[in-house]
């Protein structure tokens, strides 16, 4: 556990970057520090590895005061990832990753073997091992940055906006892989971002900080969305928080409807016979849904052909059976047929739901939550 114990960082001109911060970042979990620029989130992060020394208060790592540990030694035990990766331009990918093991006195061979393993863990091909950072894309550099931080297998990781310099598609990939790696390794992570969506996606707990370096709220994401403590947090979390909170609600058993399907390449005449309300779902050889076909609008002439990918409407999103209410609702709302496509974990088609069915489920859940909230509120009052 990383404990901030009344930590303050002030500057000689009297401004406070961090003002009396106390919070416990639990072991094996991701704690996200989020807030607008100037809220002291990066300063707080850097006080953990003593890149910045607090003016008062203490930072404790598993109960040990970091001020009592020699900085270089402390830092070798803490993985560190920053924006744009901060790779050493004069070292190859492999040598960048091997940095901390070498500092810890491992042999060059051992450090490089370890680096090669990590390359694989972060999803990079071994062919990149001998490249220099400038020869990599932004996303690849960021992966190398994560691999380098993990190289000495530190229990604690500090990540300062590691994914903010890459495009949204790559960012999402990196976030998903980061979560996959974390599920495997269970590091104690402090993650700084200014992006509340990223915070909600990655955080087990989220600390919202406000300008002036004070902590506004430290809660799990679902609670942050459903019960923001004040105006500032509510505003920062955003307008569509009601919808986003559905990301944390699992669908439970949905009333899946049977849906007629055709396979890619089947004759269109078959599609026209079996369509429902003008639409039919096309699946691949492996039963994975590929897209909707507007079979109701086919002329006799067109119906002589076969179902090809060029005819498919790809607008609908997919939701998994064990997914969240947000995914299920989105699948229904985005489907051109109005029937949301639900798939099994392995991607095979399972059935469809309508938006009203998902909404009914949301209503039931909301009612339950409201009753719970009233009970706990009256419990507090009495």
């Amino acid at each position, binding site marked *: 556990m990383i404990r901030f114990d009344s930590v303050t960082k002030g500057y000689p001109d009297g401004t406070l970057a961090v003002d009396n911060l106390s919070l416990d970042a639990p072991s094996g979990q991701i704690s996200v520090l989020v807030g607008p620029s100037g809220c002291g989130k990066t300063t707080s992060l850097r006080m953990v*590895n003593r*890149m910045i020394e607090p003016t008062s208060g203490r930072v404790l790592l598993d109960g040990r005061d970091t001020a009592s540990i020699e*900085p*270089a*030694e*402390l*830092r*070798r*035990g803490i993985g*560190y990832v*920053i924006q744009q990766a*901060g790779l*050493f*331009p*004069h*070292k*190859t990918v492999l040598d960048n990753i091997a*940095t*901390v093991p070498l*500092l810890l006195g491992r042999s060059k061979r051992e450090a490089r073997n370890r680096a090669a393993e990590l390359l694989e863990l972060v999803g990079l091909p071994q062919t990149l091992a001998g*490249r*220099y950072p*400038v*020869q990599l894309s932004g996303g690849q550099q960021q992966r190398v940055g994560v691999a*380098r931080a993990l190289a000495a297998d530190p229990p604690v990781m*500090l990540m300062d906006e590691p994914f903010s310099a890459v495009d949204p598609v790559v960012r999402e990939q990196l976030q998903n892989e980061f979560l996959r790696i974390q599920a495997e390794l269970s590091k104690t992570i402090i993650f700084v971002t200014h992006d509340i969506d990223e915070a909600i996606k990655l955080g087990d707990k989220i600390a919202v900080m406000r300008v002036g370096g004070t902590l506004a709220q430290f809660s799990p994401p679902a609670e942050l969305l459903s019960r923001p403590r004040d105006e500032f947090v509510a505003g920062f979390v955003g307008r569509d928080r009601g919808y986003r909170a559905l990301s944390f609600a699992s669908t439970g058993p949905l009333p899946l409807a049977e849906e007629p399907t055709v396979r890619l390449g089947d004759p269109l005449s078959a599609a026209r016979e079996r369509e429902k309300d003008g639409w039919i779902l096309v699946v691949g050889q492996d039963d994975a849904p590929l897209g909707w076909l507007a079979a109701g609008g086919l002329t006799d002439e067109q119906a002589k052909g076969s179902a090809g990918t060029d005819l498919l409407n790809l607008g609908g999103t997919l939701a998994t059976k064990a997914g969240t209410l947000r995914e299920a609702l989105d699948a229904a709302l985005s489907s051109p047929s109005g029937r949301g496509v639900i798939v099994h974990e392995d991607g095979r088609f399972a059935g469809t739901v309508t938006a009203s069915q998902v909404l009914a489920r949301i209503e039931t859940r909301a009612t339950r939550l409201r009753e719970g909230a009233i009970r706990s509120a009256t419990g507090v009052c009495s």
Partner: protein
Amino acid sequence: MNELWTYLEANWTQIRGWTLTTLWLAAVPVMAGLVLALPCGWLAHRYRWAHGPFVSAMSIVYTVPSLVMFLVLPELLGTKILDPVNVVAALTLYTFALLVRTVADGLASVPAHTLATAAAMGHTARQQLLSVQLPLAVPVIGAGVRVAAVSNASLVSVASVVGTSQLGQLFIAGNNVGSLAPIILGLVFFVTIALAFDLIIVIITRLLTPWHKAVAS
């Protein structure tokens, strides 16, 4: 052309001896100057207060005419006026004066965030300097060393005025006998030596910075 060849053949033994002397008179100061400039350049970079005075003092040293230097140094060092050590000492001082600033600039050219990352990974101050900052400063330092080496090669010729026996003697000889051949020959030798030094330093710099090619392409 023929005349040059004849002169070269007639004086070959002497010219060969002069060439060797010129080579070491030009090369040794570059190495010695660099070795001295590295720690001092680091000091000038590390301590901001030292940077201004240091760099100004070195600029002044660099403006002292080489002839004056060759004449004054024997007094200061207690050496004989014809001793080649005077030339080595003078040129070392010039190289040093030029490179202190280059080394300081080179160390300062390394981005602050790269150094901060190095610190955050757990490099000690010394490890940061040796395994991150210095390697990254090599392109800038290498460029400075090229300038110093080429200017050294030509400054060596001036030393012939005070009688140090090296290729500069060709210019004196040409002047004395009113012949162009030794002068042109001397010019060819000095240009060749300067270019050879330049090439060697470029090659060494490339070998030390395989990553730099990747940055450029």
